[in-house]
């Protein structure tokens, strides 16, 4: 769908504030529900929303990826709201996650299975956030399986992404209490879904008069 590049594809300052408020509610609920399932508290920090061009996403990701090995888990989601989640874990998170996600042996945590530990953990955290966000916005979401990605793939995105496709990118630093795990979730709302998001945020505000 070609929706052009005008105001209909950009969240205004007020809409960004509402979106942030919706996410605060959604992620608070996601955090409580994840705590019940994981028996651990996932602390989702205040989300920061930016409107940017799709081709600038690699630079945003690079801002958040300092030195040191990182595992990156990427998933696409589809509903009326659609986009991607990109989750970053430092290598140091693997043992905490291995314990949290199921009593794996130290050998499993350190062997090639470590990629799968990050994938499963990423699916839970990103999936939980998106599911509750979709609830708040009265949407229904389906997901692709999580896949591990590499920073350099983002450069390929940069080269192929058409110019002037505005997306909403949300940075959500998170940590898991008592498991020595911290990371960053970047959630994007695609260019195509921005008009629906704007309408949905308006509906959300109307509920509160």
């Amino acid at each position, binding site marked *: 769908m070609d929706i052009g590049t005008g105001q209909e594809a950009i969240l205004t300052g007020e809409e960004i504030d509402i979106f942030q408020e919706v996410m605060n509610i959604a992620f608070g609920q*996601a955090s409580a529900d994840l705590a019940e*399932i994981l028996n651990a508290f996932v602390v989702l920090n205040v989300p920061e929303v930016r409107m940017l061009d799709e081709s600038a996403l690699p630079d945003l990701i690079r801002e958040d990826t300092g030195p040191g090995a990182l595992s990156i888990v990427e998933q696409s989601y589809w509903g009326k709201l659609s986009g991607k989640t990109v989750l970053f874990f430092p290598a*140091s998170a693997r043992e905490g996650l291995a314990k949290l*996600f*199921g009593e794996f042996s130290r050998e499993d945590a350190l062997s*090639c*299975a470590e990629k*799968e530990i990050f994938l499963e953990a990423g699916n839970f955290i990103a999936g939980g956030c998106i599911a*509750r966000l979709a609830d708040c916005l009265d949407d*229904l979401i389906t997901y692709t399986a999580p896949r591990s990605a590499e920073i350099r793939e983002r450069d390929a995105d940069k080269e192929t992404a058409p110019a002037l496709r505005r997306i909403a990118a949300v940075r959500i630093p998170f940590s898991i209490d008592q498991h020595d795990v911290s990371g960053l979730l970047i959630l994007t709302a695609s260019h195509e879904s921005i008009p629906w998001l704007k309408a949905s945020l308006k509906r959300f505000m109307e509920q509160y008069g």
Partner: protein
Amino acid sequence: MDEYYAQIFHTIDVGLVILDKDIRVQQWNRWMEQHSSIPFHRIIGRPLFDFFPELNHPRFLMNFKMAVKFGNSCFLSQKLNKYLFPFKPASAFAGEFEHMQQCCAMFPLRGEENALKYICISVNDVTETVACETRLVEMNVRDGLTGIYNRKFLEAKLTEELDRARRYGRAFSVIMIDIDHFKKVNDSYGHGFGDTVLKSTASMLQSGLRTTDFLTRYGGEEFCCLLPETECSSAVIVAERMRANAEALALTHGENPVNISISLGVAGAAAADTPSALIQMADEALYAAKNSGRNRVIASRGKAA
């Protein structure tokens, strides 16, 4: 379309199970019947755990709750879970696997007004793929002659273990091992017997190690052993036991007994900044052992020269 979906459901080469929120079986396709030997009519309406009590496990329940509570799909990888349903392998190329290796997913099925009604589990048999992958990985990290890990594996594992020891402030030690006068063995008895000595030494060294230790062939007649969670003083005890076992190896060439000995250098990670510095420290200790008469263990005294 329903009749077509039913045909697909039963014909597809994937196990499909539909559960209600109380984990009772609502649908069970032919693939599941075939591999479980549990017919549809016996399991329908019954709790899944009556037939598979091993699934009543925190990991299964965590994923099931995730699917029910969030309406999310969950992916249960073979690498972490090996399998969900304990079926016998169906493939002739199943390798050493006792159970069919499975890649599974759990996802919600919604009814009217998008209300979550059921959870579907899909089961893919990936046994053949995993068997091939296991063989390929082994070929890539094992030394062809001795069967122990190769130098490539050592370099990756050493960096990983040193990083971890430093991050968590844990002990980590390395032993470098060299067969004394190996060239003389080759020259006297031939390279075929030299290979036998290498294989017997590797096997002897491996037999005294924990499953968390890594024995690698460093090159030629030199071996390197990584001992995570081990202080240098404890590694010296391990090294001394290796030395004594080498001396006691009962090798024969034809009718003739052949005695061998090994020299060993030990270094602890506390004094090493980098993987190469740690290897260098162990190597210097090994050469000190060689230079002071062989058949002995020497521990590094600190920083690499």
